[in-house]
């Protein structure tokens, strides 16, 4: 009862605080913290669902009207949550280390970018493109299919490989896709090379909502579907087969698990999530070029999965949220705050920050702190934030 009151109060107060102080990153963090609290607190299931539902369906868009930046952060969190959940299947459940995951994201993104922009005219001639903007919606499916197909095409030859050999091949594949995107403006101009493709059509939205809100809900909707699919897969013979492969591939096969088919399915479903989000990403950005699909991006998603807790759905969600929020919000907020102190000429320990040499500009060291946080998290919580838990089941024992 106390927990329930606390949770409701926490969420309500923190969201009110965001409305009052729309620019305070600390307050917004508090709001995010309240959601996490509502998730872990010992409160009735319906209350948890109501609180979280209200937060993401109502409060977040409202907050977005006070400060669009938060909605952007939330949308990007959504994109990365879907990516992390996809990679979680491949790495967390099936145990296949994929270091080139972002390639599938790229495939999805380019599929809409090419046809949703005038660029396709260069490719096919004529003036028929961009496709009418409602095509965006069918393309969610097309992007999914193309990415899944790419997953299968990559998977077929390489899934024989184990462990780090697979890792290096996927890394290579990721690079191949990126370099291809960067180079396929010649001899035929498919991707427009480094100059990228723009303008990419945005989908028509119902009820005249703004794009910011529209993309937020779109991302949210996809995340919900992805979570649902993820849970159903995980909690079935397919998910169990993946885990068995992760634990002992030879024994799994000897117990009747068709290795190639199961692995391909893992690759394809992981890839398809990335593909869908790629389509959304390209429309949201209006412009894409290969710089969004580097190796570091793949590493980032992997860090989310492991930080959250390998093989765990809540883990992947929280991992993606933490890394994204850390990168886009906390570290940025920190350096902006330090910058303000500096501009205001605040003195600490007798040292006037205004004299801080430019070498020590806080904004420059965000990645250093991110790296440090990764190391510390691994050392102090190696199992991840929300490690996978085994469900207890009723069995047919008399």
């Amino acid at each position, binding site marked *: 009862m106390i927990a329930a009151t606390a949770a409701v109060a926490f969420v309500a107060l923190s969201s009110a605080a965001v409305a009052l102080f729309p620019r305070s990153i600390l307050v917004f963090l508090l709001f995010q913290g309240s959601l996490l609290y509502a998730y872990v607190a010992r409160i009735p299931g319906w209350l948890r669902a109501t609180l979280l539902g209200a937060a993401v369906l109502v409060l977040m868009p409202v907050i977005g009207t006070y400060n669009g930046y938060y909605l952007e952060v939330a949308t990007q969190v959504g994109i990365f949550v879907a990516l992390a959940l996809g990679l979680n299947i491949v790495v967390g459940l099936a145990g296949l280390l994929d270091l080139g995951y972002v390639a599938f994201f790229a495939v999805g993104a380019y599929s809409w970018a090419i046809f949703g922009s005038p660029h396709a005219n260069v490719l096919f001639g004529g003036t028929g493109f961009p496709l009418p903007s409602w095509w965006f919606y069918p393309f969610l499916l097309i992007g999914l299919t193309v990415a899944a197909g790419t997953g299968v095409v990559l998977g077929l030859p390489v899934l024989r490989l*184990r462990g780090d050999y697979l890792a290096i091949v996927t890394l290579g594949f990721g690079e191949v896709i990126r370099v291809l995107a960067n180079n396929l403006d010649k001899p035929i101009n498919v991707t427009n090379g480094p100059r990228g493709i723009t303008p990419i059509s945005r989908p028509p939205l119902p009820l005249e909502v703004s794009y910011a809100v529209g993309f937020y809900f779109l991302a949210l909707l996809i995340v919900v579907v992805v979570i649902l699919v993820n849970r159903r897969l995980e909690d079935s013979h397919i998910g169990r087969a993946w885990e068995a492969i992760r634990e002992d591939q030879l024994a799994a096969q000897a117990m009747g698990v068709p290795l190639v088919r199961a692995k391909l399915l893992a690759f394809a479903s992981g890839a398809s999530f990335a593909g869908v989000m790629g389509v959304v990403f390209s429309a949201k950005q209006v412009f894409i070029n290969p710089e969004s699909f580097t190796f570091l991006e793949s*590493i980032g998603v992997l860090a989310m999965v492991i930080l959250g807790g390998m093989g765990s759905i809540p883990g992947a969600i929280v991992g993606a949220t933490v890394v994204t929020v850390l990168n886009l919000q906390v570290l940025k907020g920190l350096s902006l705050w330090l910058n303000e102190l500096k501009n205001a000429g605040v003195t600490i320990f007798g040292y006037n920050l205004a004299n801080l040499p430019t070498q020590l500009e806080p904004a420059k060291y965000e990645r250093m702190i991110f790296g440090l946080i990764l190391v510390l998290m691994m050392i102090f919580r190696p199992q991840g934030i929300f490690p996978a838990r085994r469900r207890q089941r009723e069995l047919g024992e008399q």
Partner: protein
Amino acid sequence: MDFELLVRIFPQVLLDGLLLGFMYALIALGYTMVYGVLEFINFAHSEIFIVGAFVGVELLLGLKSRGVLDTAPWPLVLLGVMLAGMLASGALAVTIERVAYRPLRAAPRLIPLISAIGMSFFLQDVIRLTESLWRNAFNLVYPTLEPLNERFELTSTLDVSAKSLVVIVAALLMLWGLHALVNRTKIGTAIRAVAEDQAAASLMGIDVNRIISLTFLIGGAMGGAAGVLFGVQYGLINPYTGFIPGLKAFTAAVLGGIGNIPGAMLGGIVLGLLEAFAASYMSLLTGGAFGAEYKDIFAFSVLILILIFRPKGLLGEVVRERA
């Protein structure tokens, strides 16, 4: 397609590829040593490598500003600088293991991988911070050791610079030394024993932690030496320079069969040759439709092909899976 040209530059391209390959091989040794013992990819090795390069450049710049760089005999200078680089990188590698990997030894394999990635980010910016404060610049240029720039014309279409020869000789020496150490000495045997079974090794009286530290020391020192040679060869370094060669070297290590020292060498050379031939020939062969920009695609595609047919790398032992 200009066939005559293709033939004419062939020896030079071969040499270019070999040189690049030895460079990769040198860096790959660090990955392979660590992988051999702990079975994990030390992503921070590229920074360990580049720290060697930075220590080297600082020393050379120091010597230069004191005006002794051109008077001291160059082999001595080079050797001294390399030793310093090796020491620094080795010490750094040992420290990283102590701080960021040892607490995670019992954790699943991907955990130290992420820790290593974090370390890699962290170190890049620490190097940058240090150099920014110290020199107010972090793109540093290696002072030239003039005698090393000399070029020898072997034929009218083939020439080689002294520094390239130094890289090749140093790489061969180090590879041979390391191979001998690991396979012919008691310490080397202990390293292999720890690699296989840490608990059993400790029951032999082997101090597992010390052996692992030693492995990082050796791997790091090799990285440091490679860093200095890299700087001498290519001239320009910054804190982020290590990343791509590091990735390539790691690829080379895998290609050769990770954990295998001659494999690292072979993998490096194969990758170097692939890249060199792709970069030099791609444009010639396709009449300009594809160019040097495709060299990585070509290299990675061949890598994938090789691994499909030899899933444990070129020299990787097929560790048999017994049921």
